[in-house]
């Protein structure tokens, strides 16, 4: 692995971590689509700041873009507060309008200037190791500029999250309670929006606007399927983000394709894996759980059936393993397998093909009957 490859991967990882940290709160607060809006509207901040400064590498571009992101959220919320437009529609109204203004400004006023639209959407992570993009201080080479910037963003995000962890947690899960406690959820909300905006702007340079959305939503949603604890969710989200970055880089390397596109693809793939196989919440384990509950229910039903006919004249007929399917109206193989399960679990014994309840089985049946009468 050459140094250039290492640096690109480091930048990809740093970007993923910064985005995944913000993403957790976006996913939990159902604000993920704001990242979509912000990542589009930062363009207008960049364009306006560029017109004012006339310099594409000016740090004011970052400031302008961040402010544009915050402005977007404020506009969406103002529109929503009028009560005539719902949130989803408000987002769908604001960002295309701002984005259109930006596109028009670019096309009208900067025909001769190199403000490449594709670079904005796709990012230029592959150019990271170029000599012109390195941070050199006091004669030492501190690696690529964008990597230094991204690491700074990680520290800002981490600092915000650690400093206001309690406030973030309460205002995310119980906004009304946090208001009652005097945490002013609105300021926390604004702080979060500022973090998301800064992160989007910085990542935008590396991975492009639409893939910022991928890195903010997919790793956090994957983590959401894996754990119930906020702190663990943050860790899982970062881990998934890093895996997408490294996996995406090598996928791009082998296909000779766009790095940011591959990163999004891998992030989506990891989400799909979690969606299907996550313990407890995945499709597969939910399906298994449903199957287990079904069997458990059938077992109790069988035991209740046995208590009804215990010590009666028809016991030999009703409780015979061969005939169970007729009385319980199940398929033959199901009634047999449930009967064997009952024997296995020590709820019944087999005496000449007739099922007899053990004390344990009787207790289970009576308990569920009791539960039934209590409910009604």
């Amino acid at each position: 692995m050459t140094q250039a490859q290492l640096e690109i991967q480091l930048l990809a990882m740093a970007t993923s971590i910064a985005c995944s940290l913000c993403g957790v709160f976006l996913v939990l607060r159902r604000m993920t689509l704001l990242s979509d809006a912000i990542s589009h509207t930062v363009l207008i901040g960049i364009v306006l700041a560029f017109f004012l400064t006339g310099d594409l590498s000016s740090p004011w571009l970052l400031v302008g873009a961040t402010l544009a992101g915050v402005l977007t959220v404020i506009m969406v919320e103002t529109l929503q507060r009028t009560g005539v437009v719902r949130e989803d529609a408000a987002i769908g109204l604001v960002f295309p309008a701002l984005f259109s203004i930006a596109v028009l400004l670019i096309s009208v006023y900067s025909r001769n200037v190199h403000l490449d639209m594709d670079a904005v959407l796709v990012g230029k992570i592959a150019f990271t190791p170029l000599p012109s993009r390195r941070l050199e201080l006091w004669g030492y080479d501190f690696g690529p500029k964008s990597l230094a910037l991204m690491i700074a963003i990680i520290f800002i995000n981490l600092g915000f999250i650690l400093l206001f962890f309690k406030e973030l947690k309460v205002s995310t899960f119980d906004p009304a309670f946090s208001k009652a406690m005097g945490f002013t959820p609105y300021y926390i909300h604004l702080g979060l929006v500022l973090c998301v905006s800064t992160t989007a702007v910085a990542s935008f340079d590396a991975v492009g606007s639409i893939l910022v959305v991928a890195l903010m939503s997919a790793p956090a949603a994957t983590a959401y399927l894996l754990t119930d604890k906020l702190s663990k969710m943050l860790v899982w989200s970062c881990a998934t983000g890093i895996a997408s970055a490294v996996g995406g880089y090598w996928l791009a390397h082998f296909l000779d394709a766009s790095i940011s596109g591959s990163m999004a693809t891998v992030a989506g793939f990891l989400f799909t894996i979690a969606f299907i196989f996550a313990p407890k919440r995945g499709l597969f384990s939910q399906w298994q759980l449903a199957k287990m509950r079904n069997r458990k229910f059938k077992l109790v039903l069988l035991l209740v059936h046995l208590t009804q006919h215990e010590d009666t004249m028809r016991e030999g007929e009703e409780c015979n393993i061969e005939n169970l399917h007729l009385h319980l109206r199940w398929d033959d193989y199901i009634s047999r397998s449930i009967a064997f399960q009952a024997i296995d679990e020590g709820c019944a014994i087999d005496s000449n093909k007739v099922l007899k309840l053990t004390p344990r089985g009787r207790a289970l049946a009576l308990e569920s009957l009791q539960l039934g009468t209590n409910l009604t």
Partner: protein
Amino acid sequence: MFDWLLIPGLGSVLAGTAILGFLCGTLGTFTVLRKQSLLGDSISHACLPGIILSFLIFNSKESWVLMAGAVVFGTLASLVVLAITKYSRVKEDSALAITLSVFFGFGLMLLTWVQRRPDASQAGLARFLFGQAATLLDRDVYLLAAIALPCLACVLLFWKQFQLLSFDRSFALSLGINVSFFEILLSILLVLVIVAGLETVGVVLMSALLVAPPVAARQWTNKLGMMTFLAGLFGAISGIAGAIISNLGKTSIPTGPVIVLFISAVVLLSILFAPARGIVWQFLKQWKESGILQLDSVLSNLCNLAKEHSGKQLGHSIAMLKEISSQPAGVSKSISKLREMALVFEVEKGFFIPTKKGETYLLNKTSQMGGSQ
């Protein structure tokens, strides 16, 4: 002045954008009412891999071949969103964001892989993202019309079902309507419209065209039929206006953004000035009502004071009324208004008593309030 009318090919551009605007407005109505405004955004981004895959498989650049691929992936994306929200605890906003970005990223990967030019600029991508309304040919207009007619026919044919679906899904279920069938049908129509529009206005602006006209139309009417028609009309007008404005200047500017800005202005005006729902009218009404309320409360305070102090004191000063009012600042203004209406009388300089007319006015008000409760 009307030179722009002579621009060759402008006729087909106008026809194309008008058809597209009408179609987007009509179908957008249902998505906005069903709180799925951003589904369009997701679907339109998700079409990218479909376009590239169908190019790879059929090795053709015919627009209908690419469109077919886009339709398949657009439908797939809407099903993925549905599956994620139904089978996991991930909420709709995250599901939309993931689908949008991952499908798009996948498309981007395929595109760069096809062209073997990592992270370089692509003419095809730019067209997909921003559209090129200026290059609409007669052929494209026929294709648009061919998509528009069946879509609109579907809307008319299943009007009742779509109406139920938009307002009361559970009632529709209880009537025995095959709700999921019509939901999927609506999604497919949406995908068709989006795919038809991608070439003209591009991805980002497509979602605006689906959301903005219905939101504008909603401000003017409470009837679904009227709203759908108005949304279509607004869409068509902005399509035409956008195409004309972008051709007005000496150098032509991109049509898509102009259309979006035009319809955004229509939305803003509707939200501010539409009768009944408009914010300006609501604000004026509130202001007027709060003035009347203040007037009534000052009069009622004065009456109470006069009753309590009858015989001891002839009138009451403004300072006194200010002391007991919840909004002291408006008291003197209210008093002068009340004097104009002859509801209070100045017995001495600066001291007021309610007149007979004032007392009956207040009595009427209170009985009205009692009656309405």
